[in-house]
């Protein structure tokens, strides 16, 4: 189980390029309960979650491996997940992208992404990008035919290279710029406005000294 070098550090961690191989995970509406079943969330740290990613689809009741891309030998070490529409829907649990990241996933490519999931990825410094249905289909098929296919995600040019092919992808411009300039961990940026925060607090009708006056 590989960990990203920058995953544990906090400031100015720029993310601009992810290079590696891909793991095609076909299916729409893959929810966060599938990504990390709730019983594995009974923990007070995220550290050990990687082994439980997609646990209930990867293993049968007896703990034997099912056929699943996360189990297949040919995708071992792959760091770019390619899935379909509405990936990460459901619960807001950051345990889901944390489990994927700790499994070794460094970027997510999908036709569409559930909003809270995409926000969680952004806040963790994990690029989550969108491509069209046809492009995803083509990419998944290409990777299935050649699991060793080199993939390169470049946030600067918003392009994904897969062997000789090149695609444009979409990512929210704010997520992109936070990744590129290393401000995806937003606490420090937000806190730098502490005076403005206090002023805002005092100005709200329900928090000021004479409430609602």
């Amino acid at each position, binding site marked *: 189980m590989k960990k990203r070098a920058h995953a544990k550090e906090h400031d100015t961690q720029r993310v601009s390029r992810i290079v590696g191989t891909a793991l095609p995970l076909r299916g729409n509406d893959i929810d966060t309960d599938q990504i990390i*079943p709730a019983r594995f969330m009974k923990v007070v740290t995220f550290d050990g979650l990687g082994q439980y990613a997609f646990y209930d689809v990867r293993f049968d009741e007896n703990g034997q491996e099912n056929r699943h891309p996360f189990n297949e030998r040919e995708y071992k070490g792959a760091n770019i997940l390619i899935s379909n529409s509405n990936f990460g829907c459901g619960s*807001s649990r950051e345990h889901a992208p944390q489990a994927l990241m700790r499994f070794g996933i460094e970027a997510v490519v999908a036709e569409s992404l559930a909003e809270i999931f995409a926000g969680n990825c952004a806040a963790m410094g994990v690029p989550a990008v969108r491509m069209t249905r046809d492009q995803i289909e083509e990419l998944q098929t290409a990777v299935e035919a050649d699991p060793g296919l080199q993939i390169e995600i470049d946030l600067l040019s918003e392009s994904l290279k897969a062997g000789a092919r090149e695609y444009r992808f979409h990512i929210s411009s*704010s997520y992109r710029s936070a990744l590129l300039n290393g401000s995806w961990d937003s606490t420090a940026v937000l*806190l730098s406005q502490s005076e403005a925060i206090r002023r805002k607090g005092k100005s709200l009708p329900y928090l000021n000294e004479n409430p609602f006056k």
Partner: protein
Amino acid sequence: MSKNLFNKIWDLHKVGALPTGQDQLFIGLHLIHEVTSPQAFQMLEERGLPVMYPERTFATVDHIVPTANQARPFEDSLAEEMLLALEQNTEKHGIEFFGLGSEHQGIVHMIGPELGLTQPGMTIACGDSHTSTHGAFGAIGFGIGTSQIRDVLASQCIAINRPRVRKIDVSGTLGPGVFAKDIVLKIIASLGVHGGIGYAYEYAGETIRRLSMEERMTICNMSIEGGARVGYINPDRTTFEYLKGRAYAPANSAFDDAVAFWNSIASEEDAEYDDVFELNVDELEPMVTWGINPGQAIGITENIPRLSSLAEEQREVAKKAYAHMDFEEGSPMRGRKIDVAFVGSCTNGRISDLREAAELAKGRRVHPDVKALVVPGSAQVAAQAEREGLDKVFAEAGFQWRGAGCSMCLAMNPDKLQGRELCASSSNRNFIGRQGSPTGRTLLMSPAMVAAAAVSGEVVDIRDFTPGYGLNHGGERV
């Protein structure tokens, strides 16, 4: 341009624009619980940061709470460890904690409204996707992940992109046996489980205005199941009446001043929206899900859609659903034998939900092949139900009456489905494995429909279950 409530509240709480183009948004109320907060406190610890607004942060324990035996330490040492962490974190940072044994403990989205913490015009954040529930009060509730919980603890702010706003205009009158749950299931089935991505939903129209606060909460609660992170309803007299006299609501002359503010933040008559969707509920039937996401829902007299009738992009998940549920396309939902019935959750664990289920259960018996659970959403709901004798009604009918918590909605506590059990559930998600068994199966429906299924041993249409069942949509006698 006349503004809608969403944009008024957003602008009121905007601290500034961030270099990334996101807005820095002040959070007026932060609710925390044991599952998604410990890592956030740990991150604060590592950075030596304090909680900036402990007085605007409130905690409770709900997800892991056992509902049968609540003696400490819990039998499940992992659950015990999570509760201990929350106790220590709230103690250390001076955060009010409604713990086990507190009369205000309960599902986080139940207790905010009950205490009057949830008020119109606020921004509210919580590490739980059903934070949209609070929108029922004309507040903006964001479900957030743990890194954002860290941000809110440290700075009382989140970095966020402003979504678009879709008005969902609901007209018509609900028939007997049709509830708020059915409205929201119909909306999700119509717009799809990803239809709301990038949107906040404003639920509006005559039908919504007639709903009680509890019904409004049911609808806003499930916004996220349709992909919308935020759902809200403009505040009105129903909202103000609900809030009057609650522990944290403004009192005396401040209440009147508050009402003036609350009225001022409602959407203008001619407010602009990025999209509008209209739904008429005159013909709406009790809804039931047949598949593995909340959008796979049909009227109770309809048949499970055939693959050929579905749009191409829906087929892959439909095939998965037929296989997991072991249901045939084109077959009816009525008459399917159930194994478990669950009344509870932040969607339908409030007193009106329990009254509706009890009305049906009264004088009847749970079918011998069914295990039935009633889990009140909060200690307050439990106490109220007990004052009304509903606990006895349920117990006499053979339902298990439990302590307050999330319970079998997501099965982080001992309440779980076993094997391939089929569960009629008043909760919000029918995802594969959601109720604790990887092969378990969930049918979402209203609490009254769950109670009817429990006593029948199978899925039924509550409307022909008993003539003159006698409830209107508010749970009061017609």
